[in-house]
């Protein structure tokens, strides 16, 4: 079953001089259990596409089904967890209460929500930090909290918008492993926006290469890499070949001009 089916999506933003075409005739299919990365330079519409799936940005035209529903219905049914570019934690809540926020909105009762929050913090290696406040944690840990929060109500679809873009490479590697293991363990569907080629290749089963002005899909690359991955994978010829393919596709889209 396809979790996301997008056909001929167009999104045009009104601007002062002339309208900006953020997405032009974008088709995308994401099957259940897929890990799909959207990669491309700034302005290629990858974030806009993710926001459209999340019903945070309205379509200008085209059809979009999420879990067989319209994006709006899917959002109302809390079909997905969303991780933003920044942690977007509430600084007046401690880590645990941040993770419990969506559970409160779901009217889950207190003991269940305590338990669920504890499980999710454990899942991301944050058990000891439940009582800390967001500003007491490093950027990488804050982003882990935001992933724990997105997963707290066990959505089957996880949307991530350049979640590690602001982090250093070592932290990023560590979090890539975390995300990979989460995906392996839960079997959920992930859509991941990034501008890092190694990150996209390491995490994905499929890589969607996009290009800017107007934002469109250039190429979809299927990754033949094994399902279970370790960081060393990035030094294998297979990995390097796929990374090369992504880079070539980006070049064809004049992303390097």
């Amino acid at each position, binding site marked *: 079953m396809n979790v996301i089916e997008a056909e001929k999506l167009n999104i045009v933003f009104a601007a002062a001089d002339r309208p900006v075409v953020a997405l032009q005739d974008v088709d995308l299919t994401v099957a259940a259990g897929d890990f799909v990365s959207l990669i491309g330079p700034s302005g290629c519409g990858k974030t806009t596409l993710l926001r459209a799936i*999340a*019903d*945070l940005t309205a379509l200008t035209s085209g059809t979009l089904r999420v879990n067989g529903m319209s994006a709006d219905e899917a*959002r*109302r*049914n*809390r079909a*997905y*967890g*969303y991780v*933003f*570019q*920044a942690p*977007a934690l*509430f*600084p*007046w*809540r*401690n880590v645990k209460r941040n993770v419990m*926020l*969506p559970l*409160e*909105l779901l009217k889950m009762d207190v003991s269940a929500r305590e338990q669920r929050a504890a499980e999710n913090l454990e899942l991301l290696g944050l058990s000891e930090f439940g009582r*800390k*406040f967001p*500003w*007491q944690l490093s950027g990488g840990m804050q982003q882990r909290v935001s992933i724990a929060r997105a997963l707290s109500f066990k959505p089957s679809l996880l949307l991530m918008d350049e979640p590690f873009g602001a982090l250093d490479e070592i932290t990023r590697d560590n979090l890539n492993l975390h995300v990979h293991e989460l995906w392996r363990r839960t079997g959920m569907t992930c859509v991941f926006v990034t501008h890092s080629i190694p990150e996209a290749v390491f995490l994905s089963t499929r890589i969607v290469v996009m290009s800017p002005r107007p934002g469109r899909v250039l190429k979809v690359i299927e990754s033949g890499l094994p399902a279970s991955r370790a960081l060393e994978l990035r030094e294998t010829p297979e990995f390097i070949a796929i990374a090369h393919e992504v880079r070539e596709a980006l070049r064809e889209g004049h992303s390097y001009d």
Partner: protein
Amino acid sequence: MTDFFRARALPVLSVTLVLLAAWYVAAYCLNAPQAEALMDPDGPQGFWAVVQAVWSMDRPVLPTPDEIAGNLFDSIFNNPITSPRNFLLQTFYTAQTAIAGLALGGVFGTALAIGIVHSRVLDRSVMPWVIGSQTIPILAIAPMVMVALGNIGFTGLAPKAAIVGYLSFFPITVGMVKGLRSPEPMQLDLMRTYNASGAEIFTKLRWPVSMSFLFPALKVAVALSVTGAIVAELPTGATVGLGARLLAGSYYGQTCMMWGALVLASVLALTLIGAVRVAEFWLRQARGGRL
């Protein structure tokens, strides 16, 4: 301790001493002509005699700090607490007006801010009136408010609280509009992904985020509330409170009484500000040390 003394206490203490010294000099200069006129022409003359005469004046133009303190002490400890001569009782009345008015202004100001943030119509139509309301001198409308509300049966505390509310709602509204609008777009998007209702966005996001705007606004409102309470006690008909004592003092040339009322008004304002700071401290603690 010595560090605290040098860094915090010493500067304040030095300024206080300079001010006190200046005060005594000013008191001498302002009171000397009258004191000299009242001196016994056959008695001792000279600088020290004038100083002594100034010191023992009944109604000095500018009383010295020790005279004010003595007068206050006398009023508070040598009168029963129920006596209108007791300044504490008058301070209590003023505090009552200020607190009732603050509550009124706080509730009204917050409600208005919530309305402005959630309704485009209110946002466009009400804000100019809110700002306009503060351009009217409160001294001019206070008597009219007292008379108007008195005519429809509101006397005593209610009309005075209304005047204080009129003054103190403004900083609350301005601060809370800013505060309720301060969530980041990303935080609002997050709430949208949870399909949160407007009420949930308000209670879980807008209200808690606005707290760092509420407390500065409250401090301004507190300062205004004491001024407002005293102004509300000035019009004819008002017989209690520090404002009434100020007025009585000026009628009868009792400068000590006026200064005493002023001292207690500032003590009252400081106490109320202190209460706000305590509330702020508690909330800060509950939030792990940051507001």
